[in-house]
């Protein structure tokens, strides 16, 4: 056996992982790709014996069968391995991360540079330390440098546009400014007490990260959660999705100067997140999710509050969206701007709404469902617009339209879930067992931004040896870099907002 098949949110003994060579793992990866599986994660775990040994764990998802394939590679710190990136571009960041963390050099990697400039890596510690940006020569070529501090109130990152006149030839995205050492902090103290930290991995996807984290703790302890808690978790996730999508539609309208859209989508977002505040005390769903279940029940009063908000926003957002997506001035800016075609999206491993807008059928809620999503499947209208034409053109229009459809789907699904609450009266929290010793576990949640993975390896005492997080932004930042090619510099904000990626979720 060169691989083990798992379900989402499963744990297996670390020693049961197959051990193969990096080359053989590459062959599996290529085989997986041919069979329609996609790479989800590749990360190293320091081994205690012998000193300097690293176990590299590779995870692939089969979106048709709903399984995860796992394998592992034994390597030494500072070793050289044949790079897989030339054949599978989606590996480019994974291999850069292995190099940064463990000094494992992927030979013939096309663009080996650090990922997030950690304080304890094998690479330079400061973002600007001796790095030579990708450069383009030519009489009319010039560069536009933006950041790390941006003009708006957003997180920091550095963008360097290589331009020919107004046309962008390439965008280099330099991140790492947000690196806080988050993964390391999960390793200190009891793992079951890290809910607040999980919510802070990316504060705009607090419920998604908290759910992935809680699912991981439950998998490690082999604990189940009450069905009522599962329903409430899904309501939290869908409120978060609808709230952010409304905010992003507002921001997209703002970037093209369509002010009715800007203001009205924004007030609907406020309506949704204020309902989240009434549910759990936080406009971002903080404090809702904890290992074992949820911290806040939905009583009749809250149920009515959520139901009325959902009804109101669904109607009003539909009405406004009909105006927005019918407007020629809006369409002139959205259509054919920032296109990522299906083949490119698949090659770089795009996930979430951005992947779906490029025609990839990736949605963990449908392909690897857990909790309420497996008991009560979500039926989506996404990828089909009003005229029956698929919104998979991969441009800003598709990404905006997918958001609009997901808002409608999420709000309808919340209504369905509220109707199920009375039937599930088994409490909102169950006791959580301590993480079992010597295990490896994976927990994937479909956050609003896409696939959100938390994984952990436990030691002899059940302590956390490695905590690994992969936000949807990890793959999608490169999608943004490719989207702006051949577009005008001034369309960058529009492209950027249509992805709305996380800096801190990437930098960790």
């Amino acid at each position, binding site marked *: 056996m060169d691989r083990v098949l798992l379900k989402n949110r499963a744990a297996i003994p670390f020693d049961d992982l197959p051990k193969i060579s990096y080359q053989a793992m590459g062959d599996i990866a290529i085989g997986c790709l041919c069979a329609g599986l996609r790479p989800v994660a590749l990360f190293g775990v320091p081994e205690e014996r012998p000193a300097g040994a690293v176990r590299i764990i590779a995870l692939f998802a089969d979106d048709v069968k709903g399984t995860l394939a796992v394998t592992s590679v034994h390597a030494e710190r500072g070793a050289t391995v044949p790079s897989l990136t030339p054949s599978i571009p989606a590996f480019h960041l994974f291999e850069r991360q292995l190099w940064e963390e463990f000094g494992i050099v992927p030979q013939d990697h096309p663009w080996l540079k650090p990922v997030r*400039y950690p304080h304890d890596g094998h690479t330079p510690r400061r973002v600007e330390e001796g790095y030579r940006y990708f450069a383009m020569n030519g009489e009319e070529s010039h560069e536009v440098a933006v950041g790390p501090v941006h003009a708006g109130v957003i997180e920091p990152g550095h963008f360097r546009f290589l331009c020919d006149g107004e046309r962008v030839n390439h965008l280099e995205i330099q991140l790492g400014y947000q690196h806080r050492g988050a993964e390391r902090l999960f390793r200190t103290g009891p793992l079951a007490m890290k809910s607040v930290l999980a919510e802070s991995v990316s504060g705009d996807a607090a419920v998604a990260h908290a759910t992935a984290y809680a699912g991981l703790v439950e998998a490690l302890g082999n604990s189940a959660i009450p069905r009522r808690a599962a329903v409430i978790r899904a309501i939290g996730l869908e409120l978060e999705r609808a709230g952010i999508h409304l905010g992003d539609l507002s921001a997209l309208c703002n970037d093209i100067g369509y002010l*009715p859209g800007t203001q009205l989508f924004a007030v609907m977002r406020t309506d949704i997140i204020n309902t989240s505040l009434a549910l759990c005390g936080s406009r*971002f769903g903080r404090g809702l999710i904890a290992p074992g279940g949820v911290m806040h029940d939905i009583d009749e009063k809250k149920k009515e509050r959520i139901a009325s908000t959902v009804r109101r926003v669904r109607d009003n957002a539909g009405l406004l969206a009909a*105006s927005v997506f019918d407007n020629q001035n809006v369409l002139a800016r959205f259509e054919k701007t920032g296109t990522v075609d299906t083949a490119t999206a698949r090659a770089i491993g795009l996930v979430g709404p951005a992947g779906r807008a490029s025609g990839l059928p990736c949605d963990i809620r449908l392909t690897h469902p857990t909790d309420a999503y497996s008991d009560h499947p979500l039926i989506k209208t996404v990828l089909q617009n009003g005229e029956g034409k698929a919104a998979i053109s991969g441009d800003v229009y598709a990404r905006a339209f997918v958001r609009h459809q997901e808002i409608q789907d999420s709000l309808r699904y919340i209504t369905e879930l509220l109707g199920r609450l009375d039937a599930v009266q088994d409490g909102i929290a169950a006791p959580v067992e301590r993480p079992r010793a010597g295990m490896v576990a994976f927990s994937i949640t479909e956050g609003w931004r896409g696939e959100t993975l938390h994984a952990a390896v436990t030691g002899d005492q059940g302590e956390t040896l490695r905590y690994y997080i992969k936000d949807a932004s990890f793959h999608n930042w490169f999608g943004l870099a490719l989207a702006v090619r051949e577009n005008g510099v001034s369309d960058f904000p529009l492209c950027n907002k249509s992805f709305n990626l996380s800096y*801190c979720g990437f930098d960790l």
Partner: protein
Amino acid sequence: MVFRLLKARWRHGSQAVPDPIAAQVDPMFRGFPDIAKEGTLSSETVALCPGAALSVNPVAIDLGKCHLCGACSRAANSPIRLSSRHHLGQTKRDALIVTAGTSFEQYHARAEKGRAEIRRLFGRSLRLRSVSAAGCSACEMELNATTNANFDMLRYGIDIVASPRHADAVIVTGPVSANMADALEDTWSATPSPKLLILMGACAISGGLFAASPALDRRFLSDHTPDIYIPGCPPHPLTVVNAILNYLGRGI
């Protein structure tokens, strides 16, 4: 077509919070902690705090470290109850420490006004430059929300600007990662004097959950003295607006 848009607009009416100074927030909001006067804290309760904000003797919560998660208030026999009072801004670091028996009114009275020159210059027009120094985006979204149609901080002449050259104050979010330390210092030195330094959120004030992380570099905060502290994780937009208005002498 235009009628459909007008209908969409008409349905929303006016969404502005009529009076952001007097407005209350939802009773579910976790705000100012009331600590019973004779209460004691067990070591189990202290261990529940993710931000190490609790102290036993005397019993106290440091709101500069508190994430308002409510774990301490849910513990058995805890003397702590989180109210929904959201006016939490302060002007001195020590004033963020709430001891047993401190009433909200006493806490609020500790917040000082800016000196006369500051109130004269900025009282009716204040421009903020935001620097996210490893903020998780929650504080950033709430700071953005202060200018939306609901909270509309612009009605008081307070706005957020794109350049430090146009700013009267720098508002910092996040625990200040080593990789952002230089950019933060550069932004501060590019802002003309007189200028205010505002810290928003537990991370900016104390490092928060990340205080012990070796990936931070908080020297900027030992070199410069903040004028306004806005606690929370993240602070509510009304907490932000009122902390600033209070400093400008325009609050309650």
